[in-house]
């Protein structure tokens, strides 16, 4: 006889305490399950009294391996939501009721590229647990397991600070505050587009690295072989296009025909879009640019492992356009040592701190990052302040300013709330 892990579906010996594949605690499972359940194929993660609620096509096989169900949303949801709701009920009652049966709530949003995963349904504004679709089995030590799970999860990194607060009752007031936080942020971001807010967008700070990047590109000739790794797609194009545009304009102005590679499926289209926009913009201004061969943008499937293939080609200069520091690091590790081409990084502001030591050590010959880098580079290229004329950049900068102001304000309010409301772990 064997135990099938309710989390990953791995088959374990009957006397196993933990799953050999994922480490799930199997002791509770085996304690609450009738001895013959493995033979009968009953779904171990679903209470017997709820079994009739499950459609027939999701019977034995799908019950034991829920991820095979077409409507499966993620197995992690079950303990996650159950824990939240159990704790939320404890707040409402004022006491921690150890025998409450946790109920799985319907998920509001789930898994859109992983971006929305941090949302907990129980903490969403006005959200309540909907109709229970699955009821977890009630067991005498269920609350203990949930508490233990919470601590393990906290210790493993989700909420490391909470893990140290042993024995504290978790009181959730998030439903009161989260809508206000979201509203404040929405107002801050939208205000410039509604004509409200500051028109003074500040001045760019000339960080080291921009001048050397400009000089490296300025020394190129039309015959120079330049490689570009295009490591961003439309998700981060709002910031990255602003940084990449002056650099690309400079390259085209020098008559360089760069070879552009991308490991992202949407990378080539993003590159072509920016190059077309730069060429159109320059034509409107009455200038002329060298024609980049847009069909030279290549998508390389296989991820970072295929980067060494690029190193077979000699290059005078390499540029990495990436929103994440890992893309630049991968190039420095996999390509730069092989073909020896100096590297310039064009990145988002968030990647700057991680990459700056590479500039200091000489592995990068130039670093252009964020709005500051874009403005400084444009000033070097055109001898003008780009924010003085570009309305689009003004709006972006005003939105960024207000968003940062809102975050600072929220941090201050959060501290006051904690000060006057007593020490709380949440909300």
């Amino acid at each position, binding site marked *: 006889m064997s135990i099938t892990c309710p989390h990953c579906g791995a088959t374990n010996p009957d006397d196993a305490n933990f799953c050999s594949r994922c480490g799930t605690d199997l002791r509770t499972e085996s304690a609450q399950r009738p001895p013959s359940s493995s033979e009968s194929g009953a779904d171990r993660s679903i209470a017997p009294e709820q079994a009739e609620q499950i459609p027939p096509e999701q019977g034995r096989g799908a019950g034991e391996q829920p991820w095979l169900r077409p409507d499966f949303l993620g197995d992690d949801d079950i303990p996650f939501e159950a824990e939240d709701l159990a704790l939320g009920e404890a707040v409402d009652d004022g006491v921690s009721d150890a025998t409450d049966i946790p109920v799985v709530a319907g998920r509001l949003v789930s898994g859109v590229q992983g971006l929305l995963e941090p949302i907990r349904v129980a903490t969403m504004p006005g959200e309540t647990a909907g109709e229970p679709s699955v009821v977890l089995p009630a067991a005498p030590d269920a609350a203990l397991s949930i508490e233990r799970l919470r601590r393990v999860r906290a210790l493993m990194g989700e909420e490391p600070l909470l893990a140290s607060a042993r024995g504290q009752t978790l009181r959730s007031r998030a439903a009161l505050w989260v809508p206000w936080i979201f509203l404040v942020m929405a107002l801050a971001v939208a205000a410039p587009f509604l004509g409200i807010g500051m028109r003074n967008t500040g001045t760019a700070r000339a960080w080291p690295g921009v001048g050397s990047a400009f000089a490296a590109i300025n020394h190129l000739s039309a015959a120079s072989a330049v490689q570009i790794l295009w490591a961003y797609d439309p998700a981060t194009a709002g910031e990255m296009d602003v940084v990449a545009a002056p650099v690309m304009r400079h390259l085209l102005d020098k008559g360089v025909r760069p070879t552009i590679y991308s490991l992202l499926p949407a990378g080539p*289209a*993003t590159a072509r*879009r920016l190059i077309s926009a730069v060429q159109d913009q320059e034509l409107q201004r009455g200038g002329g640019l060298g024609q980049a061969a847009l069909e030279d943008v290549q998508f390389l499937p296989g991820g970072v*492992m295929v980067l060494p293939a690029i190193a077979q080609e000699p290059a005078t200069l390499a540029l990495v356009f990436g929103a994440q520091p890992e893309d630049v690091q991968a190039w420095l590790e996999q390509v730069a040592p092989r073909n020896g081409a100096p590297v310039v990084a064009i990145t988002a502001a968030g990647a700057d701190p991680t990459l700056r030591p590479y500039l200091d050590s000489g592995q990068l010959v130039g670093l252009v990052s964020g709005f500051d880098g874009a403005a400084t580079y444009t000033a070097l290229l055109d001898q003008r302040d780009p924010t003085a004329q570009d309305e689009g950049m003004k709006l972006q900068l005003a939105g960024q300013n207000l968003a940062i102001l809102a975050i600072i304000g929220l941090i201050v309010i959060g501290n006051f709330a904690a000060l006057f409301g007593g020490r709380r772990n949440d909300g």
Partner: protein
Amino acid sequence: MSSTRRARRNLLTPIFLAAVLILLVIDRSGLLPGLHTFMPVGFQWLMLLGGVALLLGAFNVVWLHLQRIWGGHRDWPLSLVLIAVLIAIFVAGVVSPSGATSPIMGWVFDNLVAPGQAALFALLIFFVAAAAYRFLRIGRPGGAWMLAGALIVLLVEWPIATGWLPPVLADGAFWFVGGPVMAAVRGLLLGSGVAMLVIGLRLLVGRS
């Protein structure tokens, strides 16, 4: 399957991994110059494998959503929309002689893909704000340090503050990010690198 056959099969993976590892080390060290003529072929194979994996993933998505439609599962109309869009994009890319650079694909990318991805990514600011409100507090263990660090970085990254912030604060933030923060990050990177090495060796010798 007999235990002997299973053991042999299990041995194949570490042997293959060890062979690739040795090849990469030799290639990187330049001990065998002739290897450079062979390695590009290996990387071409890798790219082919990546392309095939991408296609398999697409087929898997189609198959999964067709099952949802046939079974009438929850939100099956969304699966129908996904299949329809996938077919439309595929046909638009294949039918047009210019392929991925066709005007139709360009329109779809500019008007659907790009704004959609950007909008989804922009939602992160709401989570950042909620996280800042909840977790950056003095009362937590080490919270004061985290709070001070976050505020300094936020202030320095704030373009409008460059006019009235004292330069010493910007220099301090620059030192903070480049010194202590990077020391910690590099420590983490080194630690994870060593851990990966150990796990890799354990896998190679069959002790995983």
